[in-house]
């Protein structure tokens, strides 16, 4: 029943025009970035390497597909949560708004299974968005710009990663990026269980992300104690795979925090939906 309902939920996602907004927006945004990098990539990158280029000369293809993929991933990881929340924030509240949730709850399926099927459908949608981003960012970029060593800008300097050592980092990076986007999807599904319309959960999800991101970026010692437990702090954990010495302990902690968020938010959703008075 769970699988069948997950399939039904996927059909609902596929039938909504807003589900394609994410794919369309990603394609457009990445297209613009690719065009900008093709037109003026060297100047864009020289802004990063400028302080070194007073004394050093960088030789080789600096602007390559790997660098473009890294830039795309870094730029879009902030915006993709909105595209995810647009769909997943509507999964429960959308049905409440349309009045179809009563019919769904009257079917021979438990409420927990309804929530889990919506969660799995949301996870599959999030996975497809991540795959699409990976395809456009990495495969299309490498097709246009070729491959090469990757220059990564960190706050304490530049790391140049050899070409042969890049792909596995991207693969694991995308896995962690998927996990962080799944956390956003679960958050919006959770908020969706509390709402009767779609706008509330979507706006609330983005507000939480913005507030948490600002707290995480501020270098204020008062926030130091809570920063490690904010999921937004770990949404950039994918980046750790591009360090000179990969901080595996830090990555595992990030994965733990993200999985814990998913588990807690899903539990809250299950509890709320099971206790919910369905009156619509």
């Amino acid at each position, binding site marked *: 029943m769970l699988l069948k309902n997950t399939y039904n939920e996927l059909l609902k996602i596929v039938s909504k025009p807003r589900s394609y907004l994410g794919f369309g927006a990603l394609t457009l945004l990445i297209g613009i970035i690719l065009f900008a990098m093709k037109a003026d990539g060297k100047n864009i990158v020289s802004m990063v390497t400028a*302080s*070194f*280029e*007073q*004394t*050093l*000369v*960088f*030789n*080789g*293809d*600096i602007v390559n597909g790997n660098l473009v993929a890294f830039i795309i991933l*870094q730029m879009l990881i902030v915006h993709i949560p909105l595209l995810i929340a647009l769909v997943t924030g509507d999964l429960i509240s959308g049905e409440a708004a349309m009045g179809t949730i009563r019919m769904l709850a009257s079917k021979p399926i438990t409420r927990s299974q309804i929530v889990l099927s919506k969660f799995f459908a949301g996870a599959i949608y999030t996975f497809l968005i991540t795959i699409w981003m990976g395809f456009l960012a990495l495969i299309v970029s490498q097709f246009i710009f070729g491959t*090469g*060593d990757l*220059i990564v*800008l*960190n*706050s*304490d*300097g*530049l*790391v*140049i990663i*050899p*070409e042969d050592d890049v792909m596995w980092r991207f693969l694991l990076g995308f896995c962690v990026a998927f996990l962080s986007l799944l956390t956003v999807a679960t958050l919006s599904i959770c908020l969706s269980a509390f709402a009767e319309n779609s706008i509330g959960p979507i706006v609330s999800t983005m507000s939480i992300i913005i507030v948490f991101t600002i707290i*995480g*970026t501020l*270098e204020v010692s008062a926030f130091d104690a809570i920063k490690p437990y904010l999921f937004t*702090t*770990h949404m*950039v*954990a994918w*980046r*750790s795979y591009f360090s*000179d010495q990969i901080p595996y302990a*830090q990555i595992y902690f*990030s994965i733990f925090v993200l999985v814990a968020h998913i588990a807690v938010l899903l539990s809250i959703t299950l509890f709320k939906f099971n206790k919910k008075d369905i009156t619509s």
Partner: protein
Amino acid sequence: MKNLVFLFLLFSMSMYAQKAEDLISKINSKFETIKDYSADAYIKADIPMLKILPNAAVIYFKKKDKFKIESKGITVLPKQGFTELNHFLTKKNDYIAVLGDSLVIRDRKTVLVNIIPNNSGGEMVLAKIWIDVKDFIIMRSQITTKSNGTILIDYSYGDQIKYGLPSEVKFEIDVKKFKIPKSVSGDINSKKKEDPKKKNKTKGTITISLSNYKINTGLKDSIFTEKK
């Protein structure tokens, strides 16, 4: 008597200048036998705030000043000092050479020649070169520039000593401090503790090992045109 001492000093200085110019002439005469060359290079860089693995490359040079490096990946080289010094030394009217102290560098007796550019508008402010008085090769140079600080270069020689081409060149360069906000780099989670030894390190080294020299093979100009 005073005039005699003054004349003696003037004569001594001109002798020193003459000797410095002779040494540079001998280096230039070696350099003049080279029309072009290519060599395999292995580049190791230890630069603060820049992490890069050693890389193999091929270096091409053609007179007067055409230079190109080809590598599979990204390599870093100093902005100044690879071929510019030899090229500058051939322009005899552009500088004054003054003899300095002698010094033993890696068991070779060298003398210091100070190169003072005549034109104050150029990038080079002063160059010091330590010349091996037996084989007439540059063992060490120190180039002080206007915008790139001071570059110390140590040369080691192998098979191509007769051409004055080194088998290893070690650059020590000044590196300016590099710090960008985490919000710009996107590296908001980094909590790396700075190594106190490296914290104030502002000198970097680049070591280039050169082998498999191919000299005067008639390199085409098209090699030096950048691919678009």
